[in-house]
C-alpha cells in the first residue's frame, strides 16, 4: 500500500485535531457529569435548634439547615433566599422570612443557622396552634445554589422543606 508523502501534513493535522477534540470533549463531559451528580445528590434537612418566647407577643425560632453533598467536585455556594413557616396541614401561615443575600460556600456537609422572630398576628396564630396541640410545623423555603464552572456560573433554585416540632414550655 503506497502512502503519498504530500498526505503526511494533512493526515498529521487531522490526527492532531482528532486527539485534541476528543481530549477536550472528555474533559468537558467529566465536568458536566460531576455537576449533574452534585445537583442530583444535594440534600437539605431542617432541624429546630431553639424556640423561646422573647417578649409577651414575640417568639424566636432558630433552625439549622444542613446541606449535604455527597462527594462534591464542583465548587458551589448557597444562598437561602426566603422561607415560610406553616402549620403541618398548611392551613395556618406563620410568616415569611429572609436572611438577605448571604452566600455560603458549600462543603460535603454545611450547616447554616437561620432565625425568625414571630410576632404580632403570627405569634397569636402560633399560640392558638400550641393550645390546640398542633406543634408540628413546616419550614418551606428555597435556596439558590451557584456552581462555579470552568467557563461561567450556573445557578439553580432548589426547594428546601423541613418538618419540625415545637416543644411545650
Amino acid at each position, binding site marked *: 500500500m503506497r502512502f503519498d508523502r504530500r498526505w503526511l501534513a494533512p493526515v498529521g493535522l487531522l490526527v492532531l*485535531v482528532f486527539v485534541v477534540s476528543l481530549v477536550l470533549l472528555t474533559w*468537558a463531559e467529566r465536568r458536566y457529569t460531576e455537576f449533574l451528580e452534585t445537583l442530583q445528590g444535594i440534600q437539605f434537612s431542617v432541624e429546630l435548634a431553639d424556640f423561646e418566647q422573647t417578649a409577651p407577643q414575640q417568639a424566636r425560632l432558630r433552625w439549622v439547615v444542613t446541606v449535604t453533598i455527597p462527594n462534591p467536585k464542583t465548587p458551589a455556594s448557597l444562598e437561602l433566599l426566603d422561607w415560610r413557616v406553616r402549620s403541618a396541614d398548611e392551613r395556618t401561615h406563620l410568616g415569611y422570612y429572609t436572611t438577605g443575600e448571604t452566600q455560603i460556600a458549600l462543603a460535603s456537609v454545611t450547616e447554616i443557622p437561620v432565625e425568625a422572630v414571630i410576632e404580632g398576628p403570627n405569634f397569636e396564630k402560633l399560640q392558638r396552634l400550641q393550645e390546640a396541640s398542633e406543634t408540628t410545623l413546616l419550614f418551606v423555603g428555597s435556596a439558590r445554589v451557584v456552581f462555579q*464552572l470552568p467557563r461561567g456560573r450556573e445557578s439553580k433554585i432548589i426547594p428546601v422543606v423541613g418538618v419540625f416540632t415545637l416543644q411545650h414550655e
Partner: protein
Amino acid sequence: MKFLRWLALALVAGIAAGASAALQSGELLKFSPVPALLAYVLIFLVGLSAGFLVKKFQEGLRLALSVTLVGAITLWAALYLPNREVVAAAPELILSSVWWGALTIFVLTLIGIIVARIFSGE
C-alpha cells in the same frame, strides 16, 4: 478515493468535528476548558486537512456531507449520554443543539475544504 480510505477519513474527521461541535453547544459550553471560538477553529482545521486529502471539489463536497453525518451522530451521542434520563422524556432538549451543530460542521468543513482546494491549485 478507495472506499476504505474514504470511510476511515470520514470517521476520523467526523468524530473530530462532532467532538469539537459538542464543545460549543449550549449544554457543554460552560463546562468546556476552551472558548467556543477554538471549537470553531478545530472544525475548520478538520475541513482544511480533509480538503488536502481529496482530489476534486465534488469529492470534497461529498466528504463534507459524510463528515457532517458522522459529526452529527458523534454530537448527538456526546449530548445524549450524560442526559439520557432527561432526553428520553424530552428529546427536543438536545435536538436543536444537534441541528445547529451539524449545520456548523457542514459550513465550516466546507469552508476548510474550499480553502484547501484553493491552496492545492484547483
